[in-house]
């Protein structure tokens, strides 16, 4: 049950992509997402698909993992697809009763659907090839310039690290409490939404009390070992940019260039002329 859920999406590996600095991967993911919204037609997706294919292929993440990420939003994808197909106004193609499928509708459905799928796959790649701890270090480093403006990036990263460490503990605690209350006849499964909501109190209150007790004990333990917050703490694994990170930056620039030229219609123009001349 609880054991079945592997924490995080991380798929272990030693590929070039796995070894990239976490900061690069985070920035890349942002660039990727923004790029998806710059694309206006299907030709642009070619660049995206090639890029994704390369990343997935080299990092050796199995396709099943990638597709697993789509499972929770499967219904949203279908929903988006269907509604776009039936609701877009334009030249009608097929009429089924009072529902009309238009040419534009089909195009939109596929376009939006593809964008959604690519969005999810691309952003889940980040967590697939980066360990949570690397992510938090990366975020901390990226945010540290903001410390000058008062952002406590070290503290935030510390909170993330400690939170990650305690999630399995609290998950187990949640499981135990749920079972103990179920043994007393509590029912977390049946009833309407309001009833189920109320039934969670016997779970949440003891969970809270446990969690805060842990907080108190750990705070004392940390202070007993002279933790005083901070920027003066050293790290066990430093974060250094390597040659491959520089190469990655160049590749990102290439990607962005391709996307922008495509967005300006250059790529589709080339493709169309190629096809027409053939």
């Amino acid at each position, binding site marked *: 049950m*609880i054991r079945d*859920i592997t*924490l*995080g999406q991380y798929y272990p590996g030693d590929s070039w992509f796995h070894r990239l600095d976490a900061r690069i991967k*985070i920035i890349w*993911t*942002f660039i990727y*997402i923004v790029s998806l919204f710059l694309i206006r037609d299907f030709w642009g997706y070619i660049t995206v698909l090639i890029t994704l294919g390369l990343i997935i292929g080299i990092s050796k993440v199995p396709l099943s993992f990638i597709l697993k990420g789509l*499972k*929770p*939003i499967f*219904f*949203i994808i279908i*929903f*988006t697809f269907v509604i*776009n197909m039936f609701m877009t106004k334009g030249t009608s193609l097929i009429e089924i009763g009072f529902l009309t499928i238009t040419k534009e509708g089909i195009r939109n459905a596929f376009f*939006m659907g593809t964008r*959604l799928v690519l*969005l*999810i796959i691309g952003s*889940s790649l*980040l*967590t697939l090839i980066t360990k*949570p701890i690397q*992510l938090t270090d990366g975020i901390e480093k990226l945010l540290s310039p903001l410390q000058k403006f008062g952002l*406590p990036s070290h*503290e935030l990263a*510390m*909170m*993330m690290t*400690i*939170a990650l*460490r*305690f*999630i399995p503990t*609290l*998950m187990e605690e*949640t*499981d135990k409490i749920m079972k103990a209350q179920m043994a007393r006849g509590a029912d977390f499964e049946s009833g309407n939404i*309001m009833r189920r*909501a*109320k039934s*969670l*109190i016997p779970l*949440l*209150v003891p*969970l*809270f*009390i446990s*969690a*805060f007790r842990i*907080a*108190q004990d*750990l*705070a004392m333990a*940390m*202070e007993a070992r002279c*933790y*005083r*917050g901070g920027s003066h703490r050293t790290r066990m694994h430093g974060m250094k940019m390597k040659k491959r990170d520089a190469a990655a930056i160049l590749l990102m620039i290439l990607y962005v260039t391709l996307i922008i030229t495509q967005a300006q219609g250059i790529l589709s123009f080339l493709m169309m002329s190629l096809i027409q001349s053939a």
Partner: protein
Amino acid sequence: MRNTKYLLQAAVIAAAYSALTIVLMPFSYGIMQVRVSEALTILPYYTPAAIPGLFVGCLVSNMISPYGILDMVLGSGATLIAAVGSYLLRKKSFLVPLPPVIANGIVIGSMLYYAYAVPMPLFACILWVALGELIACYGIGYPLLQYLKKYKKIFELH
């Protein structure tokens, strides 16, 4: 205000938020979006450490969820704004669950409309999310707030 206990309270709130999101997963991700862990948005009533705590909790649970970075940034941003709002309204317990309903409704609703292209009008997206939040924050969060009143001691920061 920034002492170790504050840090740890925030960390455990973040951990609890994520743990609940994962354990009650079928509820949390997916179309209905009744995130039980959103009930924890009442915690600013008890401790200011809940502001970074909820923010980090949202961040972390999105890190390990299949949704990805958009949710991570926007969702966490909304949670942060909401937490500050709840903290500011902490004198009136009935209003404490309100900021998350509004903030998440607007931010996540807009995200669903603009980014995920959910084909419903904008206000419908916003209302849909707000409804899920309402159930979590007022349906579960508010009673939780009342129950925890007896245990105020554990929230002390000194």
